[in-house]
């Protein structure tokens, strides 16, 4: 039984046996191989897969936007209302783009021309494809801006992209893509760069617009929460092939293939598991921590002050994981950097075993450096590319006087502990995958014998399956070393699974603080409620949990 009447009418898009070749020297022959799926009118089909699965290549092939020399369609067809776009002449393709198929992209910040007014950029579609006069064009633009619920279109039509928020820019993109009512909308990770509350609004908007206009949507995402929120049907891709496809219910609730099962199982649930309160020794305490960036520029009438963090108080016990959750700009990373003393807080205290390290100069800080270690978000920039993994791991212990031999022995031991071969110490970072590099960073942190480990979005750049493994590793070492963990994340699912307690931050202030179970079950602050409401696919993933 299908909930949506699809397959009854002729599909808007029918991808048949599509194969796109990669340039020689790539890690595999084809970017995508024998891809087939249909998208019906009024249907949202989610193409889901991890990085490198070929989902974006599929979208670009349909639009005819593949980089000319590098990626070549070698077989198959993409029938847009029966017309094969892979074989269409470039002139015909241009006619089809904007009129029969529209596209929106991941980065609303860069997808709009920064030197052109947004109204003009929407009107550009009309200018290319219609004979409307300037006044008619303006009216149509205003209409569509209203339809995508942009506030005050009369004013905003003359704004430049930099004057708009990320969500507003994505609405502009949607307006431009849909103004001529194309039969197909291709959305390539359209909400990935957005905060969760904005994401929820944009998802709602896309759904509303497509059902009102009978648009078929090809929605590319890596996020199963989003899939469960909006998909009618799901196509799962891996290494350029379709692994499985079916309705949302089929794929999410009753996956058939092992890969899909693994992916679905790897998505952390939003329902936190019960946790025993940690009663260990106090590892760290932050009191009234503030970081204020005062840009008192020469000539500006009033100093521009950014309160990145204000009056932040928390403590972490040994063996405990404290999560700091918030959207971008909430100040969570500022707090992490203050605690790691990569920056000096403007005010407040950071207490380690009774000593206040908040304002110590680098010289006096050194003894305390061992106690606090940090793992960063980007695994590709966290290790010096010119030094072997071993050199990176032993650097700290040698700084603190450990003999080289002993440091290397310890590094070998730690490599095993984080699940890597001890023999890999002589290799360079580029020989490892992202997940492996995060393990190496964890080993480097552990080599110092810290009491507190800060994980600053440490799993956010990783694919969901790898993410689950690294989270498990973090939880294991916490138990094994009785570590205090400060876990900074924007991802509520991850926070729900790994944290004992949670602090929710907004605009530099902690708005709510409590045990994970309490905060998730009955959020008190308005903002926390809004945040949880916005989490896509709230009921999805409830059946499983980490550990």
């Amino acid at each position, binding site marked *: 039984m299908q909930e949506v009447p699809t397959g009854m009418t002729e599909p808007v898009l029918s991808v048949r046996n599509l194969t796109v070749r990669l340039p020689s020297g790539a890690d595999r022959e084809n970017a995508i191989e024998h891809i087939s799926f249909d998208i019906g009118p009024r249907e949202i089909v989610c193409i889901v897969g991890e990085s490198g699965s070929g989902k974006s290549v599929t979208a670009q092939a349909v639009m005819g936007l593949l980089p000319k020399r590098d990626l070549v369609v070698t077989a198959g067809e993409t029938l847009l209302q029966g017309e094969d776009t892979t074989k269409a002449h470039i002139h015909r393709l241009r006619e089809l783009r904007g009129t029969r198929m529209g596209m929106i992209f991941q980065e609303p910040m860069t997808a709009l021309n920064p030197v052109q007014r947004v109204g003009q950029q929407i009107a550009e579609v009309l200018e290319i494809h219609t004979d409307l006069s300037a006044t008619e064009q303006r009216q149509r633009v205003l209409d569509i801006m209203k339809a995508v619920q942009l506030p005050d279109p009369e004013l905003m039509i003359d704004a430049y992209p930099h004057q708009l928020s990320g969500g507003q820019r994505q609405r502009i993109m949607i307006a431009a893509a849909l103004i001529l009512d194309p039969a197909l909308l291709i959305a390539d990770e359209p909400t990935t760069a957005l905060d969760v509350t904005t994401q929820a609004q944009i998802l709602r908007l896309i759904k509303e617009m497509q059902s009102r206009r009978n648009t078929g949507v090809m929605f590319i995402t890596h996020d199963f929460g989003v899939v469960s929120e909006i998909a009618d049907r799901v196509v799962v891709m891996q290494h350029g092939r379709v692994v499985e496809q079916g309705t949302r219910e089929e794929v999410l609730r009753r996956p058939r293939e092992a890969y899909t099962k693994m992916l679905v199982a790897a998505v952390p649930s939003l329902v936190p598991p019960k946790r025993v309160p940690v009663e260990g020794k106090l590892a760290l305490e932050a009191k009234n921590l503030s970081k204020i960036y005062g840009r008192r520029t020469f000539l500006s009438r009033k100093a521009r002050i950014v309160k990145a963090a204000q009056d932040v108080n928390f403590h972490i016990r040994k063996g405990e994981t404290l999560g700091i959750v918030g959207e971008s700009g909430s100040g969570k990373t500022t707090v992490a950097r203050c605690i790691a003393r990569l920056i000096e807080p403007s005010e407040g205290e950071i207490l380690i075993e009774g000593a206040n390290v908040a304002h110590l100069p680098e010289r006096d800080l050194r003894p305390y450096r061992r106690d606090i270690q940090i793992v960063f978000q980007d695994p590709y920039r966290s*290790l010096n590319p010119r030094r072997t993994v071993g050199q990176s791991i032993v650097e700290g212990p040698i700084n603190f006087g450990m003999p080289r031999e002993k440091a290397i022995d310890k590094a070998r031991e730690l490599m095993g502990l984080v699940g890597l071969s001890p023999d890999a110490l002589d290799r360079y970072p580029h020989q490892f995958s992202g997940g492996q590099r995060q393990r190496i960073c964890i080993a480097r942190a552990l080599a110092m014998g810290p009491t507190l480990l800060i994980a600053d979005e440490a799993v956010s750049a990783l694919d969901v399956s790898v993410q689950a493994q690294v989270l498990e590793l973090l939880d294991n070492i916490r138990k094994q070393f009785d570590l205090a963990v400060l876990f900074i994340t924007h991802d509520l699912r991850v926070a729900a699974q790994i944290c004992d307690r949670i602090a929710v931050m907004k605009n530099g202030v902690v708005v709510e603080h409590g045990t994970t179970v309490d905060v998730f079950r009955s959020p008190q602050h308005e903002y926390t409620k809004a945040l949880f409401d916005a989490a896509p696919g709230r009921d999805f993933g409830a059946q499983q949990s980490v550990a």
Partner: protein
Amino acid sequence: MASIDAAPPVYRRRSVWSTVLRNPSVIFGGSIALVMVIIAILAPFLGTRDPAQINPSARNQKPGYTATVRDDEGKRIQVKYHLGTDSLGRDIYSRVIYGARVSLIVGITVAIIAVFIGLIIGMIAGYVRWLDGIIMRFMDGLMAIPEILLAIALVSLSRAGLPAVVIAIVIPQVPRVVRLVRSVVLSIREEPYVESAITVGTPTPTLLFRHVLPNTTAPLIVQGTFICASAILVEAILSFLGIGIPPEVPTWGNIMAEGRTYFRILPHNILYPGIALALAVLAINMLGDGLRDTLDPRFAKRF
């Protein structure tokens, strides 16, 4: 114990230098530059005469002129002037060959000195916050004086000669290197791996030498190549204007300056040294382009 990720993908990275040596610009520019260096070194063995020797009886001759002169022991010998002679009867061919020496010495010394000084000042500016403003304002001021004018003004200060010319060309180049090094330092110190090194207690000097300095190598090699090309040009300009190295020294610029008077009749006096000069600069520029494309596309700029 955590499980191991799927089989570790092997990201093979070809050795940087093998990539560099495959680049056509590097091959082309590098070979010509190498030939120039060899010519400069082997100048005395390339059938040349004393480039400063004046022969009043063989003045202003066209290429291919043959004359009988006395050699050092007083014997009469036949001499062919492959590229003719100048208004003092000096052999243009020999002067052009020997000219390569001066040009390459100037180019290479200027590049090395400018890079060395710029590296030190740039590291200081990039890492010592309170000095940064002062140093950079000073460098801005120096950069505001057009390169050639500054060099001209500086040579006018002291007696003409190779060291004065080298210093006069080095000084305008230093701020460019400083800017480059500083921008590398500023961007690298934000890298998470540098911050990680801070949190494991690496002392600042070690941090600079171990994690920051190696990142300046590639852009400095590229920048040094461009400086070398530019220095050769500026030296030729100074000589040509008659304010550089003393006129009796065979430099390409001096040969051309000397050839100005009879240019209409004897254009080769300007043409041949001009070709040699252009070829040298072209070769080094191409080498620089190739190095930039293969080593580091981000930082190095030509000026």
